[in-house]
């Protein structure tokens, strides 16, 4: 009997007005598991993540994180998750360390100056800690966003194109960080439409197409070529 899933999505549907984005999605991610969520643009990957992150509510069905319902118990869910999406949550007029202190304090933490410096050092921003973020490149801003994860390690990570905009060193660091989350018994759900690096971490692959999970298989069971084939197949079917 496996442990209760950290992420459980049951018969989930979401419509934006007339547009039905998710039809009937069911998915479970267990502790220590990483699932790559593949699918073409507009398949609803981001919407699914947003529902899990309590940013938007499902039209029907249910999504739960660590046993807490994402719509009814959003506040409990927020204590468990971290979202790494397109937004970096960086204020351009604050310095790197000020940005980090702001988000940590707002989350109810009291990080020491050392802890802040340590987190910035991990993402190699320690030398620009006191420089306004306005001058940062996109990659640097993304790294600054990731530094938050170091200060408050989450149990459940929701990732939307996590490696976009990161350079080789940062990717490597982030991969290690994600592996550590897995090793601690956390869960990862990773949305991506590329078949690259994300697959290496993922133990399972789920393809989201046509508003439902078209394929859900362990990574080992299907080779990369097979994934490519299935992916193309389902993608065509949907469009």
């Amino acid at each position, binding site marked *: 009997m496996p442990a209760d899933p950290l992420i459980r999505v049951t018969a989930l549907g979401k419509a934006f007005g*007339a*547009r*039905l*984005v998710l*039809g009937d999605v069911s998915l479970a991610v267990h502790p220590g598991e990483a699932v790559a969520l593949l699918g073409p643009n*507009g398949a609803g990957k981001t919407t699914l993540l947003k529902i899990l992150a309590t940013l938007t509510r499902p039209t029907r069905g249910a999504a739960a994180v660590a046993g807490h319902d994402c719509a009814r118990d959003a506040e409990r869910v927020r204590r468990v998750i971290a979202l790494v999406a397109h937004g970096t949550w960086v204020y351009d007029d604050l310095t790197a360390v000020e940005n980090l202190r702001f988000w940590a304090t707002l989350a109810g933490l009291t990080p020491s100056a050392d802890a802040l410096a340590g987190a910035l050092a991990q993402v190699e921003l320690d030398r620009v800690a006191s420089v306004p973020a306005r001058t940062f490149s996109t990659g640097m801003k993304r790294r600054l966003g990731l530094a938050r994860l170091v200060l408050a390690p989450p149990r459940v990570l929701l990732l939307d194109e996590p490696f976009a905009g990161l350079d080789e060193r940062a990717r490597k660091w982030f991969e290690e960080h994600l592996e550590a989350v897995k090793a601690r018994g956390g869960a990862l759900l990773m949305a991506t439409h590329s078949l690259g690096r994300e697959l290496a971490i993922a133990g399972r692959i789920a393809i989201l197409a*046509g*508003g439902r999970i078209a394929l859900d298989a362990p990574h080992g069971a299907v080779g990369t070529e097979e994934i490519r084939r299935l992916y193309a197949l389902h993608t065509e079917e*949907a*469009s």
Partner: protein
Amino acid sequence: MADNWGYVLAAYALAALAFGGYWRRLARREHELRQIIAARGARRPQTPYAS
């Protein structure tokens, strides 16, 4: 003060216009929507995805 009836009637007429107008608007809109729903139900038996 017989002429005051003019104001009274004007007030009641205006109210009748407002309420009547609102009622007509609701009736028309409902009719319109019923037609849209009926037409769509005939054309598309299932409700898949608009993409």
